[in-house]
């Protein structure tokens, strides 16, 4: 159990700035997901907390104590990686016992047995205990890796893309399992991923990292409903938010260059936004609807069939945007359609900076 805080962390590798002025606060018992693309600085953040890297500037606190001088072992964190790194000639049981048999830990035999049994039960791997790890499936191996972390009762679990190497169905199943596990243990989890679905579905809080900077932190709902900028808007959500350039004029959104216009109803928020300001409009695909008497004409560019619903790419001139429609909607490529959007759900971003006008204050 632990509260983790990073204060003004900067980390450079030679000329490369991996992290810049990073502040991060992870509450005790929280499932925190750090989301970002390859090279965003996610793994570096994790390694700094684990004590495998030293920050160039700034401080790391675990339960309010500056741990700058603590080695990785003293920090008592458990790392679960994408590669399982189990001992192949050992059985599952031996793999689970291994971290407890280290001399510095001095855990009694009775307690080892108890902890291993409890971890096996939690992860539903009791039937695999006497099997050698090279005879396990990917999902089973990842469960054992997590088991090796659990038996140690670490203060914090750090997980670096632990599901990325698994196939889609298994990933889907382990997502809920992992979240369930974290709730039952009541432990602090820091989970790193590039997959926004994992971040949304598992995190109590999500931090979006881009080029070493923390762009936004919030609940999945905050981030989805109110993205800080166009980067977050297009990164979180599948399909991503539609982004189109334009400006406001007399309460209407004019999508440039003179492609089409639609009503905008931002309430009081739109007050004070000059008609000349260059904007980027954002609208989620579920807030775009096909209507036979909709105000704008478009052609169907592509249809992605998900069974439960279809995602239609619409083309208006050179602009394309996506709409989510019910599965029973029959659509042909190049069909003529008309569409509308929900004028209350349009997000406005400053075109130059990309920052949401709501966040810009």
């Amino acid at each position, binding site marked *: 159990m632990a509260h983790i805080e990073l204060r003004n962390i900067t980390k450079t590798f030679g000329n490369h700035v991996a992290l810049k002025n990073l502040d991060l606060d992870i509450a005790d018992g929280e499932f925190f997901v750090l989301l970002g693309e390859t090279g965003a600085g996610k793994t570096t953040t994790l390694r700094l907390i684990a004590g495998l890297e030293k920050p160039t500037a700034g401080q790391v606190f675990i339960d309010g104590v500056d741990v700058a001088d603590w080695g990785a072992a003293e920090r008592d964190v458990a790392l679960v990686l994408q590669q399982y790194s189990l001992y192949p000639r050992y059985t599952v049981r031996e793999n689970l016992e291994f971290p407890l048999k280290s001399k510095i830990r001095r855990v009694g035999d009775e307690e080892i047995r108890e902890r291993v049994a409890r971890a096996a039960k939690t992860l539903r791997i009791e039937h695999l205990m006497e099997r050698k790890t090279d005879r396990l499936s990917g999902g089973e191996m990842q469960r054992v890796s997590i088991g090796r972390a659990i038996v140690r009762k670490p203060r914090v679990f750090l997980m670096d893309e632990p599901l990325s190497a698994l196939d889609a*169905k298994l990933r889907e199943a382990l997502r809920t399992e992992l979240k369930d596990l974290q709730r039952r243990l009541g432990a602090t989890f820091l989970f790193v991923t590039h997959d926004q679905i994992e971040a*949304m*579905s598992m995190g109590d809080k999500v931090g979006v990292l881009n080029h070493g900077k923390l762009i936004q932190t919030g609940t*999945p*709902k905050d981030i989805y409903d109110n993205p800080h900028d166009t980067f977050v808007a297009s990164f979180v959500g599948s399909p991503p938010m539609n982004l189109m350039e334009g400006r406001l004029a007399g309460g209407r959104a004019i999508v440039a260059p003179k492609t089409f216009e639609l009503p905008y109803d931002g309430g009081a928020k739109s007050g004070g936004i000059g008609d000349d300001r260059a904007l980027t409009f954002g609208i989620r695909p579920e807030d775009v609807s096909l209507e036979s008497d909709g105000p704008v004409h478009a052609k169907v560019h592509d249809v992605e*069939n*998900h069974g*439960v619903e279809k995602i239609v790419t619409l083309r208006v001139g050179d602009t394309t945007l996506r709409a989510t429609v019910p599965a029973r909607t029959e659509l042909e490529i190049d069909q003529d359609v008309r569409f509308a959007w929900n004028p209350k759900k349009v997000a406005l971003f400053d075109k130059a900076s990309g920052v949401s006008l709501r966040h810009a204050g």
Partner: protein
Amino acid sequence: MTQIELRGVQKFFGAVQVIKDLNLKIDTNEFIVLLGQSGCGKTTTLRAIAGLETIDEGDILIDGQPVQHLKAADRDIAMVFQSFSLYPHMTVFENVAFPLRATRMSKADVDTEVRAVAKVLQITHLLNKRPSALSGGDMQRVAIGRALVRRPKAMLMDEPIGALDAKLREEMRAEIKRLHLKQGSTTIYVTHDQIEAMSLADRIVIMHEGVLQQVGSPQEVYAHPANLFVAQFVGSPVMNIATAAVSMVTSATQVAVGGEGHAFQFPAALTGQLDAAKGENGSLAMGIRPEGVLVARESREGYLPVEAHIIEPLGSYDIVDLMVGKQLLRARTRSGYVSGPGERVWARIDPSQAHFFDTVSGKSLGVRL
């Protein structure tokens, strides 16, 4: 205008049978997707049609003519692979023109053909470049161009966009679909990605362990899976499957999952349909997709009280795990509809979206309510 037919095709690799008695008829201009996990026999099937693999038994017919003894080059079929396999020392033009070398076509005609294909694929501006200067998507466009330029009888594609990143994959998928609509050649496309299959195919052919599981339109395969394998392979999140006990109570049928006392109401017609299909308690499973589990926040007629467990917010909707007795059912709800784990809610199964399977054979009993 090309029909392709497989009749009783068998293929062994040593002692392992990779294609088991495969029968399939593909119509002119049809877009067929072979869908399955790695090792299911889909690529072997494709290669057998192309003539890159021999078959041990059965017939492969192109326009009614058996071709299993013909060499690949004599079958007049073009193949596109995941790896682009372009000639690095040739320009894009030379790469696309390459298959025409052997045809004794005049230089002017070659030029016309290559430019026509390049225009369709929007790679005209790249014709003088070398493959090393191209992006992944453009390389695959060139590979497709090289396949198209011969005007083959059929196009076979083996995970052609599997190596591209997500965004480009989407773009190329749309292009392949448009190209097919424009050119209208018989196409067989292999993938393990069900969204790709659902989005591209006229008909999907689902394979598992060398055995054809189901052939049908995307809609059919999704709404009426033939067996448990198809039911759980197509669709995300995966379809809920629960052992079911069915009983008749006055004018309705009850379906209990997760132990006694947790019975969902179904129309009385279900009993008759199950009897006709010889579906018996003890080997009966109900399948329901997350969107077929209806959730209410207050008690309603026909709804069972259940407890919400883990909630996965996915932006435009949530996936909520519900505990019905000992059975976990995943439901799809509006975003934020169920506030948190532990909340008591009420659930019902939409009878028109429910499936019933024989758990021994795995086959769907074909119940439609």
